[in-house]
């Protein structure tokens, strides 16, 4: 892995800037972030495959796998806490979302698969992870709720349009050069288990 770098980035993100990122780099985002979970992705893919538009144009923006706790104060939505959900559930939808929207960055946790990595390489997108469970910290990085769509899917699954400031630390896990940090981590873990840990414990 190359030497880790730290970046402060602002939306809209340019393809050139995103293609500079390497796995292991740390990023903080300021600007607009849009949330979608499984059911949101399902609906997005249905709309896109019919040639329809999403409520918000995701081009050069950031898509976030998150289900916040929100409340309404004086008729205005407020994020109580927010954090990433496990991204592997979105793997079936993500390549199409990347291809058809031009979204530049995805935030989640737990990692994504080879199809998403291929879409990231082809269209110039990165997948990053935010430390799961750090939801109160992250709420302090959300400035306001700009809008919300698809509330019929339920509050956690709705599409929340958020203005964020220095959202992070985000680690680049899939870059746009076809590399996946977690593939390397798994590969190294397997070697350690088979060639170091098991022999030491006398396990075959």
């Amino acid at each position: 892995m190359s030497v880790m770098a730290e970046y402060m980035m602002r939306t809209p993100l340019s393809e050139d800037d995103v293609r500079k990122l390497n796995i292991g780099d740390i990023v903080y985002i300021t600007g607009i972030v849009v949330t979608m979970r499984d059911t949101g992705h399902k609906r997005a893919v249905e709309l896109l495959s019919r040639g329809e538009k999403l409520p918000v144009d995701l081009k050069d923006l950031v898509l976030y796998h998150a289900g916040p706790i929100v409340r309404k104060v004086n008729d205005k939505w407020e994020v109580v806490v927010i954090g990433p959900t496990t991204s592997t559930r979105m793997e079936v939808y993500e390549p199409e979302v990347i291809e058809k929207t031009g979204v530049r960055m995805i935030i989640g946790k737990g990692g994504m698969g080879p199809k998403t990595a291929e879409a990231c390489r082809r269209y110039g997108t990165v997948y990053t992870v935010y430390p799961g469970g750090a939801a109160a910290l992250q709420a302090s990085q959300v400035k306001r709720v700009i809008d919300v769509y698809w509330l019929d899917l339920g509050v956690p699954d709705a599409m929340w349009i958020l203005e964020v400031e220095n959202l992070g630390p985000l680690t680049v896990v899939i870059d746009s050069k076809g590399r996946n940090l977690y593939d390397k981590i798994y590969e190294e873990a397997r070697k350690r288990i088979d060639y170091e840990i098991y022999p030491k414990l006398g396990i075959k």
Partner: protein
Amino acid sequence: MSEVLEGRLLESVVRLIEIAATDLPSDVEDALVRAFSVEDNPSAKSFLKAMIDNVGIARSKRLPICQDTGIVMFYVTVGDKFPYTSLLPSILSRAVVEATRRVPLRPNTIDVFSGRNPGDNTGRYMPWVEWEFVEGLDTADVTVLLKGGGSEIIGRAKTLIPAEGIKGVIKYVIEAVYDAGPQPCPPIIVSVGIGPTVSIAMKLASKGLLRPIGIRHSNPDVAKLEEMLLEAINSIGFGVHGMGGKVTALDVHVDYAARHPASLSVAVVINCWAARRASMRIYPDGRVEYITHPKYNMG
């Protein structure tokens, strides 16, 4: 029992849930701080810092530590002289509804067949309550555990043949942690149950999550196994959220029941780093004491 007393007990259980959701137990926080001091992988370190900062913000602003406030599980130990046992089931259930509104908790219970979410964290067998009865006491201890969804993805159990022995158990646990990878929000707490049936092993594994970090099993052989597993898991190198590094697990807890001649069952339950639990003791006069979080006790 007077309605006043019942109302007060209800309030104290709502408080217990709020404490669990917003104030990480000190043993878990201390373990995160220790992990930060030994870790030298820069990404893992920056994530640990975010997690420790988050714990402080959640506590001071009384916000949930994680947006997934989990499934609400109660473990209740009741003395046979405790006067309000029959009221507890209803109080626990109503407290979950109240806490969902007030903390707030995320509404997480979905009916398996209708798909309906009642919005208040109740449902069939929800909240989950496990009872234990003890002789000679006039108190009841109530522990609440908020079990997040991500770390449940990889809970598992299997019956090994006895010839596989403890080595078979070790291998099963390490493979479970390997398959889990970064999904359960490491650094994780791994709890292992061993026994004659998968259901007994799983029950012991689940209950092991209540044991504070750093406390070893009273049987020295089991304590040694816990240390060995902890060292092995931390040699895997997943690190905090899969960033790589020295700390993949904060602790490993093992408990066991005597086995059957034909079976050696093993169960693995994993908790995310945000191990949210809180305990209180209810006295016969209705007074309560927060055991895991004594600073919330009045006067």
